[in-house]
């Protein structure tokens, strides 16, 4: 099949299991669904759009993919007002200006020989491409990713933060892996990068964008996966404590709070507990370290009543 390319660098993506394993080897605990979507992304040559609550490891997945493939990661962080000039390419105006100044005399020489305005103009137009060539083109992340000679990972982070019009710039990159620069032409990727887009759903993304992407929704992990993740990051936490703290965090996420604790906060909490030489959870310990998990005063107040119950349940888990 045409989709299965023999490009160097992507060999590791030969099967779903291989991806799960490979990601595991760089410390990312994958699920079958995640691995499947990456497998498809490569073999169908499609970008993956990852949605899900903040802090479930969307960005980390892209970084881990790059580590696993031993490929460079090109990252484009989106924000309101991000435009073509910062995402695709920009002309090096300063350099152009400097060169025109420096070459002024040279230009005078070249043109000077001619008598009529017409012939001078003709001569000048033949040089025009000099100043609008790749020498003066400043590649921004998207163009940079297209120019990679071997396998690479392109991460378009928090695409929902960019304006709607910006999605339109992305479409060409996402569906054809190319960038069109009007003055030069179309620059097509020789080796298409593995494209990963993430969104926190600040706003609904356009259908055109969604249509061009595979879609992966990553939710908070279940207890077993979260344990594996914490274990991978904080290796010397005891089994008992690990089970208890994960069960506590899972319980916390079910409560009605503004910001549910993310995975990285669980990891931080595990480190904190470890530092405090805790062997098991109890209410006072939880209370004194709760600010690692909850970052809003109102959230801490809201769960106040539930802490005792949760801590008890977790200790029994």
């Amino acid at each position, binding site marked *: *099949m045409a989709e299965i390319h023999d490009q160097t660098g992507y060999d590791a993506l030969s099967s779903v299991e291989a991806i799960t394993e490979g990601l595991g080897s760089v410390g990312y605990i994958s699920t*079958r669904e995640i691995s*499947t979507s990456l497998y498809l992304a490569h073999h*169908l040559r*499609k970008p993956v759009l990852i949605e899900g609550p903040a802090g479930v490891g969307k960005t980390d997945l892209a970084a881990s993919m790059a580590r696993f493939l031993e490929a460079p990661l090109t990252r484009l962080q989106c924000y309101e007002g991000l435009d073509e000039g910062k995402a695709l390419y920009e002309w090096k105006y300063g350099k152009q*200006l400097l060169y025109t100044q420096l070459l002024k005399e040279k230009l005078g020489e070249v043109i000077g020989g001619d008598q009529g305005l017409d012939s001078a103009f003709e001569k000048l137009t033949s040089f025009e491409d000099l100043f609008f060539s790749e020498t003066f083109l400043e590649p921004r992340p998207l163009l940079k990713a297209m120019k990679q000679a071997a396998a690479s990972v392109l991460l378009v982070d928090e695409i929902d933060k960019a*304006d709607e019009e910006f999605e339109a710039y992305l479409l060409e990159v996402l569906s054809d892996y190319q960038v069109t620069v009007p003055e030069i032409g179309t620059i097509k990727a020789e080796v298409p990068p593995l494209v990963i887009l993430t969104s926190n759903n600040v*706003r609904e993304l356009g259908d055109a964008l969604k*249509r061009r992407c595979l879609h992966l*929704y990553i939710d908070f992990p279940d207890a077993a996966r979260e344990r594996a993740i914490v274990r991978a990051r904080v290796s010397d936490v005891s089994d008992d404590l690990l089970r208890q703290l994960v069960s506590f965090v899972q319980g916390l996420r079910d409560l009605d709070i503004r910001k549910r604790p993310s995975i990285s906060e669980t990891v931080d909490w595990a480190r904190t507990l470890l530092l405090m030489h805790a062997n098991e959870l109890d209410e006072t310990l939880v209370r004194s370290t709760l600010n690692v998990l909850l970052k809003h005063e109102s959230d801490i107040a809201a769960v106040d009543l539930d802490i005792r119950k949760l801590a008890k349940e977790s200790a029994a888990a």
Partner: protein
Amino acid sequence: MAEQVLTDFIRALRSADVRVSTSESIDAARAVKLIGYGDRVLLVDTLRCVLAKSPAEKHTHDRLFDLYFSREALEPPASEESDQSEQEDSAAPIMDALDLIENADETQMAMAMEAAARQAGIADIRFSTQTSYFAQQMVEALDTGALEGEIKAAFGARTEEGTARAEALIEGRKDLFIRARAYAKQAFETFGKGETEKFREEVLTEKAISQLDHYDLARMKPLIAKMAKRLAVKHSRKRHKKNRGQLDVRKTMRANAGFDGVPFDLTWKQTKRDRPKIIAICDVSGSVSKTVRFFLMLLYSLYEAVPDLSAYAFSGNLKDVGEILDADAFDPVMDKIIRRVGQSSTDYGQSLIDFQTDHWDQIDRRTTLIMLGDGRSNNADPRVDIFSAAAARAKRTIWLCPEPPSLWGTGDSEIPRYRPHCSSLKYVTTVKDLERVIDEVLASYN
């Protein structure tokens, strides 16, 4: 056949409101070709990833996948096309009813049902009442000639064994019909349910609000959420309009300071569009309260497009109902407000006075003031003067009246006296009307 399986599944998804474009169907076909039908978990992960593009769609997808792929043991249509046709030939389903009853095992039976269903065009099923019809069609698609003949012959023999055999065959025929019915019923769940829902929703939005009963109210919520999403997508576009042709000198100079002031990078003047600001004042007495409920529900679901929203409810006195905004439980809060506010008899004049004393500053030139009520003020002074002053301050003033125009001005209706001060006066009966009004209001900000 493999393709038929996939296209039918996509059809089922579409009927359940999952938008699947043609290019996505092609992707799905490519993906399935890549991974095959052999591994069920892999298949569901793959299709979910390619076809469903939001958590809600993923949920629908999983439900339909279970329904749709539950019956077949996922017979792998061979991956290479060349021997696919061959295999299909060799495994042609038994279509003779007699043969089926007497000899078929479960798999053959299932295959026959599948084939019969396809012949009957089961993917067209739309309503649950069609189940029997399609079951009948399916049985007819089977070749029943031999079976009927055999039954007749067995009866005709007039022996004990003959009668017993005939009865057994009749049982078998009944069983076939039961199977067909079960199959058709499942097909309805897969293909038809979404369509039926859609149809119901359409009817609901066009139904007069006063006619909606309790049962409808529960259905209305997701509908209004959908409506609000549509409006938000339409109106939360960018708020800057490039005013091409007018150079913004200050910005241009700043942007080009690095180039020695040579203006390479030109910046044009932009006009900022106003963010919509809506103040809604709603009469929550008796008959109007139902309309108000939907109106507020819709407004509050619009937080994306209307960041600046305040709502007040009144009958005798005016109360701020802003607290709904933060509450997930819309209904209980709304009930509380109506109970609290809606006790006394309606007094438009007093409510306008209350508004003037407490919230007057809120009206500015970008405010759209929306009044919702029948304008029946129990013969109290309607204080048209305050209303006209408010209208003069606001960008637009819109009155929504749930009473038909023929009743305006009858009895204690003060609508004709308010009317000259409104930018527009609208008769709203259905939820669709409400949507149209809000659409118009938001459009006026672009």
